[in-house]
């Protein structure tokens, strides 16, 4: 009698557990196709498409809806949005840190190990590392020595103003978020930066919105060199165009990272987390390395040799850290003052006031 009851109870328990599993399975099946991840990104769709389709192939239940912005637009859109997307991806490290600092991000667990500088709070993850480079016209420098450092570059400009006049390009820091980031990081690194900008000003340097425009002008011979271009984008053009050369200055070369975070408002945190993990996984990094213009963050051979095999000049790489210190340059006063000084230097109209 007692034994019978026990058997009955065990049977019921097994049936119950089976039902729960069945329900979970059905739920998964039913849920799976419904997930669509909204991605807002300040990265060329063309650079990302292989990675996106790679993720969708690996996770059949998840669809990505990718919206492209430029960095400033993205920031504005995020701050004014009533409903945030699931993922936000941008090359503007300072703006990404700002958004995360405001508490908009949600932590992602079990993310593959990546360098310390490229991640913050377990919420913001860099997934590329891209050096800031100098692109030059090979023909123009056929008879000349290439500058190895920033002070050498400033010296070259000072010694031969006629050659460089109107033929140097760099980012318009007021227009481009990454340009501003590179310029401020230069300024933070030392006094060479302001000297260099002043010499750019004397040489009547031209300013640009984007890397590709600068590189195009260098190729056509309008410019002899372009300073502070995004290495990854430029390298794509340089490898296809024999007129172009690319070089990392040896005093230091800034390295920035594209970063991504899952928003706190996201309704599909698990799926969004899977995307972040995919980006940093070996598969994702291999896709970045092979099928996109971007450079992977995690490189088995080591970053130094990876860059040395692609760029001229040996250099010390200086990664920009994804840390709140980036917020300093987003300070409205600081930014206004910096832009003011920078404009004065680059136009050469007003000498930068000495404080």
């Amino acid at each position: 009698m007692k034994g019978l009851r026990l058997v009955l109870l065990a049977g019921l328990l097994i049936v119950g557990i089976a039902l729960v599993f069945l329900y979970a399975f059905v739920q998964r099946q039913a849920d799976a196709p419904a997930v669509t991840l909204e991605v807002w990104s300040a990265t060329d769709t063309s650079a990302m498409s292989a990675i996106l389709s790679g993720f969708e192939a690996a996770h059949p239940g998840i669809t990505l809806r990718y919206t492209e912005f430029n960095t400033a637009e993205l920031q504005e859109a995020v701050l004014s949005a009533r409903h945030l997307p699931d993922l936000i991806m941008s090359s503007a490290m300072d703006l990404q840190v700002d958004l995360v600092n405001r508490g908009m991000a949600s932590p992602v667990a079990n993310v593959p190990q990546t360098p310390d500088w490229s991640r913050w709070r377990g919420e913001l993850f860099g997934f590329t590392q891209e050096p800031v480079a100098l692109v030059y016209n090979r023909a123009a420098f056929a008879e000349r020595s290439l500058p190895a450092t920033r002070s050498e570059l400033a010296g070259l400009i000072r010694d031969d103003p006629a050659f460089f006049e109107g033929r140097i390009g760099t980012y318009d820091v007021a227009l481009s978020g990454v340009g501003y980031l590179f310029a401020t990081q230069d300024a933070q690194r030392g006094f060479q930066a302001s000297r260099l900008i002043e010499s750019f000003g004397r040489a009547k340097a031209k300013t640009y919105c984007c890397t590709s425009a600068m590189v195009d002008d260098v190729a056509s011979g309008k410019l002899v060199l372009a300073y502070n271009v995004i290495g990854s984008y430029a390298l794509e053009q340089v490898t296809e165009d024999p007129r172009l050369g690319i070089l990392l200055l040896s005093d230091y070369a800034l390295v920035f990272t594209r970063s991504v975070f899952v928003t706190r408002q996201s309704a599909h945190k698990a799926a969004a987390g899977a995307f972040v993990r995919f980006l940093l996984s070996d598969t994702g990094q291999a896709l970045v390395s092979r099928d996109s213009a971007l450079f992977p963050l995690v490189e088995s051979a080591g970053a130094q040799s990876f860059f040395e095999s692609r760029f001229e000049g040996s250099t010390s790489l200086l990664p920009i850290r994804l840390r709140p210190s980036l917020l300093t340059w987003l300070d409205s006063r600081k930014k206004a003052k910096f832009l003011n000084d920078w404009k004065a230097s680059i136009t050469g109209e007003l000498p930068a006031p000495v404080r």
Partner: protein
Amino acid sequence: MFGTRSRVRTAESGVAASPGLLAAVSPRRAYSLRRRLIVASMAAFAVLIAFLSVGLWTYARSAANETYDLLLRGAAIAILERVTLTPEGIDIDLPPSALEILALDQEDRVFYRIVDAAGTTLTGTADLPTDGFFERPLPLQDPIFFDSTYSGETLRFVVNGRTLLSADRPQWIGVQIGHTRVARDAMERDLIVKGLVPLAALSIAGIAMAWAGIGFAMRPLAGIERDIRARHSNDLQPLDAVPPREVESLITAINGFMRRLDLSRGQAESFIADVAHQMRTSLAALYGHLENAGEGGENGAAAVVRARDQARRTVRLTNQLLSHAMVIHRADKEMFQPVELPELVRRLMEEIVRDDKAGTIDFAVELPEDPASARVTGDPIAIREALRNLVDNAVRHGPPDNQITLRVTAASLDGRPGCAIAVDDRGPGIADADKPRVVERFFSNGPGGGSGVGLAIVAAVAESHKGRFQLSDAAPSGLRATIILPKTPPQNAGAET
């Protein structure tokens, strides 16, 4: 039908069996000293840890706050240093180092703003919580620290300021910096864990030591137990264990008890041996007389007289031995009650006078005026027996024209009130040298010597009442036997030492 009945029967028998089973399993269970000590020490340690945890938590929190407040303060100083007054107005050049300092802890989010005395945000995040610091005196040298919730987390804020000296009037400029508590909480947890782990280890060690200590403390007792267990039941030698001070009194008590047991057993054995000897001797004499009597003739007639005499003595001896045994037996029990000594003496005297066939003896009784003053707490039967023996002795040892006086007087016994009952006779008395010996059992004295039990009974009664029995010479001649009884026996009558 049959099956049902049998099942019912088994059920009944099961019910009937269970109480007996229970009773067998659980009589009064001995408690475990070890378990009690362990439970008590665990409770004590738990309380201790609870108290220390509170202290530790307070300490850890303040330590973490102090440490990271220094960072906040440093950042505030770095920012304030870069706020200057220029002809165009206030110039703020936020130093990257300030936020770099705060970025020393990896995970915390950072907020800042620079405000003027009116509360207007000059730069930074405008909507930071103020905690009402604008209502209080604005900080100049010593910063204000406070916790407040912002952007969904608790933040720690510092507010500090400085006065900018302009041409017209001094102007206060303040900086407010806050960061999340991730690093602080981590440090706090770390400190608490580092404090609690040794504490927990200490507690476990303490409990283990209590566990082991009980075993250690109980070891001498186990030795004593082995000693007692191994003994023959006749062996009442004191325990020769060297006990620790803590159980010394217990061992002493056990040894004292065994000594008394040994003593009383020895007395019982010698009493039985004496009784056996006396009875055997007495009966052997009786048998001898009867054998002679069987031969007839004049010798036979004399033997019959001797045999009767011997039989009478044997009866008397038996009675007295039984009386003695009874007195001793009664002394063991609580049979004490208020006894009016004059009443008791008067009745006894009436009985004796009735029994005195010859009528040649002059009996006298002297009683106190107030019968209440001669009331004692005691065993009336035993007292009566003792007096009866004294009077019998007086009759036996005295001349035919004996004068026997019973006197009840108030007396004092070792400083406490008591009553004395004295029996005087006109007999030969007892030599001083023999006085201590006559109270011993079977010591008989003089030509009319009795069984030798009488005075022993008297002495036993006196002793069982915590009284005294003494013999002295009566005036002008004869013996005075006095029993002095306390009015109430001492409270610790049972606890004989």
